[in-house]
């Protein structure tokens, strides 16, 4: 039945409705009206801008765009949107308070968060290494390839890691920067090339 689709998490408390007492459930709940007392869900509570909840709330996730007076305990997250106003204590591993939200109370992310943020940290580094490793390999083959092609300078290529470009001579240039013409230790092949460049 299509009814079952509707049943799947479609509980809405309309704007003119007042519920006073205890509310429990296993589906998402959207509050546009008022709920007072006690509220516990195994899923998500959404308090829309017109919604007012004066209750002790125990849920998996809470998204507050309206008004909540009372304590919220969430097993996953609590989010106060820019329209959200709340007075009470929040106890949840993840607490998100957006600019514009109004909140007064305590926040307790528990002792687990460090343990939970660790995997997040490790997840970020995982990205970095992959990024590093990705660019790293290509240059190496490139360096290896250029000397191989320019076989004429094979001897010099063996010792030089940094310079892979046509200016194979350049790596030696910085060492005696002030004295480019100085011909002391430079190999014969290199000398000739340097001279050619200077002429250009």
């Amino acid at each position, binding site marked *: *039945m*299509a*009814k079952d689709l*509707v*049943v*799947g*998490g*479609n*509980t*809405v*408390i*309309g*704007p*003119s*409705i*007042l*519920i*006073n*007492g*205890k*509310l*429990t*459930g*296993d*589906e998402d*709940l959207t509050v*546009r*009206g008022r709920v007072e*007392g006690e509220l516990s869900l195994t899923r998500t509570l959404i308090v829309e801008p017109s919604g007012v909840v004066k209750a002790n709330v125990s849920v998996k996730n809470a998204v507050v765009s309206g008004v909540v007076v009372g304590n919220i305990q969430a097993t996953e997250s609590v989010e106060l949107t820019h329209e959200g106003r709340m007075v009470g204590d929040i106890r949840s591993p993840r607490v998100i308070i957006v600019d514009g939200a109004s909140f007064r109370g305590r926040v307790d992310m528990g002792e687990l968060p460090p343990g939970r943020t660790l995997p997040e940290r490790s997840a970020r580094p995982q990205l970095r290494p992959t990024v590093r490793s990705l660019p790293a390999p290509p240059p190496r083959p490139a360096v290896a390839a250029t000397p191989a092609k320019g076989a004429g300078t094979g001897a010099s290529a063996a010792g030089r890691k940094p310079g892979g470009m046509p200016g194979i001579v350049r790596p030696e240039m910085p060492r005696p920067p002030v004295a480019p013409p100085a011909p002391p230790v430079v190999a014969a092949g290199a000398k000739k090339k340097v001279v050619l460049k200077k002429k250009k």
Partner: protein
Amino acid sequence: MPVGLIRKDGTHVANTVIGSSIVIDGEISGDEDLVIQGTVKGKISLRESLYVEGSGVVEADIETQNVEIAGRVTGNIQATDKVELKADCRVVGDVKAPRILIADGASFKGNVDMDVKER
């Protein structure tokens, strides 16, 4: 007011829906239609219509304008307009309303008071 709008699949269009897994123990009041697919215990007072769908269970006193019951209701029902007990519903309690309809197949135990003023 869009009282009693019904979708093609038979569900009601309303602002407020108490889903099938929801249990409310307390008092519900308001000025709009209410659809109950879950469980409500306590008291319900509305100025509009109440629909207790097939999966709905109500153990509460009800005061509304209209009531349509396809589920289970235990409690006294008082409506300013109409009470309709549909087929397959199970109702235990007193019913008081100017118009009371009991469909073939409905199960009902209690008093009926249509408030006939002629008496």
